[in-house]
């Protein structure tokens, strides 16, 4: 059975695994980071409801910067899946 696995198949299998691991761990980190930013923004709105617009704007920009690492991980996954450099 194991003799039927070609090197190309092995490369594709590990590429898929690598893509999944990359985006998965990145999403874990981003989720925590964006959640922290959102929780602090909610606290701020609760304390100072009149500053809601400014807080929302700052929170969204901060979350977008947080997201960058995840986007890089996403691009790594996309390259591994659709434009594989090894196969």
């Amino acid at each position: 059975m194991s003799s039927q696995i070609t090197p190309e198949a092995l490369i594709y299998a590990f590429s898929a695994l690598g893509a999944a691991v990359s985006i998965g761990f990145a999403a874990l980190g981003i989720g925590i980071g964006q959640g922290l930013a959102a929780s602090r923004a909610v606290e701020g709105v609760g304390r100072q409801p009149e500053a809601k617009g400014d807080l929302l704007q700052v929170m969204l920009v901060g979350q977008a910067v947080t997201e960058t690492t995840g986007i890089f991980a996403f691009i790594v996954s996309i390259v591994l899946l659709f434009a594989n450099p090894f196969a």
Partner: protein
Amino acid sequence: MHIGPQIVIKFDNGIFITNTVCFGIIVAVILIVLALWSTRRMKKVPDGKQVIAETVVEGVYNMVKATMGPKGINYAPYIGTLFFFVLFSNMLGLFGQRPVTADVNTTFALAAITFVLIQRQALKSYGLIGKMKEMAQPYPFMFPLKIIEQLSFPISLSFRLFGNILGGVIVIEMLLEGLATASEALHLPIPLLDAVIPLPANFFFDIFEPVLQAFIFTMLTMVFITMEIATRDEEH
């Protein structure tokens, strides 16, 4: 599944035109026609289309003034154009087309314009020698790090927009294909499940996300240009 842009016209000498270029030009033409049409026969007391045009322009100017201060008001036309071009390009998914910004060439071109503007503003504020001195702060050995920081900004800015929009495209495509397979398994004559079920996903990825990403792209552009204006005020 094909996720890249498709080639529309191919010339003999190997040059080709993708649908990114076609729809980029179409979006630009639509924006120009809208702008020209809404400013035709302007009156002192605005009515109809002129009210909408004035609201939009005023909104852009107010946002730029609030973020960049009174010194950055000259950037308002560029910021407004950038916002609406990115917004309309992101929203092409609503019409069943591939968004223009789901191509890294488009987003990197936009980010390169921003990069040039930032460096131009820095040169205007400090001059070449002053910029070099400023980059050697607080320690001289930080100089290479600062260069890498400056160069990585357009890359992260372009990849942020590109990744978000491409992710939306892939999710929508996978949803539609999956529902088509499901309706085939149910022996429906046409892919009937594709009709209403993807609407929430469309709402999120073709309306909410484009507005958010266009806002973030222009916002980061404004913030980074402002950083080069603001430090000048502290010195003088």
